[in-house]
């Protein structure tokens, strides 16, 4: 009998799918990357999500943020993400926090999650995520985007990857200049979600100690090692 996840079954075993469906995923940031990440996780079949974002949709989000439309400007991103994701699967359990993820609330938010993925716009927040994920021993898929460019890496507890990608004293990168737009955001989010799925089932290549650098302008996909 064909169920809603019938098309997953050609590439994943039943055991793998059960494992994926029963994983509790935290998504920090529900804007550009986060919207696509949430949508794809729910479409795939994740049953439990924790989502976090303090912001409300505004006019300039319309060029790229999946859940932003002309009718929900001024409304909380987490509430809109939850509402739209539940339209895809009414059985999905989404815990939404309309607050900025930080060192104070982070442990409470991440507790009971099996993995965390981010789509935040703050390098400082990524350092908070990596510290807390390491503390509670869960993997962290770190995604970021800037204009035509993006990068994805998978960070496991105690890995020192993030400090090799960013200066701890900065909070933003070239996105302040390049802006962000729909196709780059969707592409990077999708690769990030694929990392989450592969980590859960422990199959395929995971970008641990490596970063995938994507340059959509030049059609370049480059994996670099961050190990000495």
């Amino acid at each position, binding site marked *: 009998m064909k169920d809603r996840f019938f098309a997953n079954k050609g590439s994943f075993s039943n055991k793998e799918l059960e494992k994926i469906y029963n994983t509790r995923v935290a998504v920090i*940031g529900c*804007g*550009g*990357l*986060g919207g696509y990440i949430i949508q794809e996780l729910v479409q795939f079949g994740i049953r439990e999500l924790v989502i976090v974002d303090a912001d409300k949709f505004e006019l300039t989000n319309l060029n790229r943020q999946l859940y932003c439309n002309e009718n929900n400007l001024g409304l909380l991103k987490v509430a809109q993400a939850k509402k739209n994701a539940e339209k895809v699967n009414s059985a999905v359990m989404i815990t939404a926090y309309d607050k900025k993820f930080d060192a104070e609330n982070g442990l409470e938010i991440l507790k009971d999650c099996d993995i965390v993925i*981010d*789509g*935040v*716009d*703050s*390098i400082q927040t*990524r350092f908070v995520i990596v510290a807390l994920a390491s503390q509670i021993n869960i993997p962290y898929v770190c*995604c*970021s*985007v*800037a*204009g*035509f*460019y*993006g*990068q994805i890496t998978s960070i496991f507890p105690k890995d020192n990857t993030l400090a*090799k*990608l*960013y*200066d701890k004293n*900065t*909070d*933003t*990168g*070239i*996105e302040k*200049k*390049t802006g*962000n737009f729909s196709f780059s955001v969707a592409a990077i989010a999708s690769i990030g979600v694929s990392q989450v799925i592969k980590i859960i089932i422990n199959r395929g290549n995971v970008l641990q100690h490596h*970063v995938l*650098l994507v*340059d959509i302008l030049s059609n*370049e996909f*480059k994996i*670099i*090692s*961050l*190990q*000495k």
Partner: protein
Amino acid sequence: MSICVKLFATLRENRDKKLEFDFKKGITSQEIILKLNIELNEVAILLVNGIYSPPEQELEDGDVVSLFPPVGGG
């Protein structure tokens, strides 16, 4: 000595993506970055011959230096 510098993403704007230079022996990646009028905080990842390297590392003849800017948006 001959050094090849490869630039990525926005560091290519108004510059070639691959540059070849003759530099004095003992030059560091950091000095090359400044010679290219790139600010140090514009470089997030620095590779020498494909290996993650510190900016103060002295280079050898034939080294390839790759520079990537910080990408931090969501």
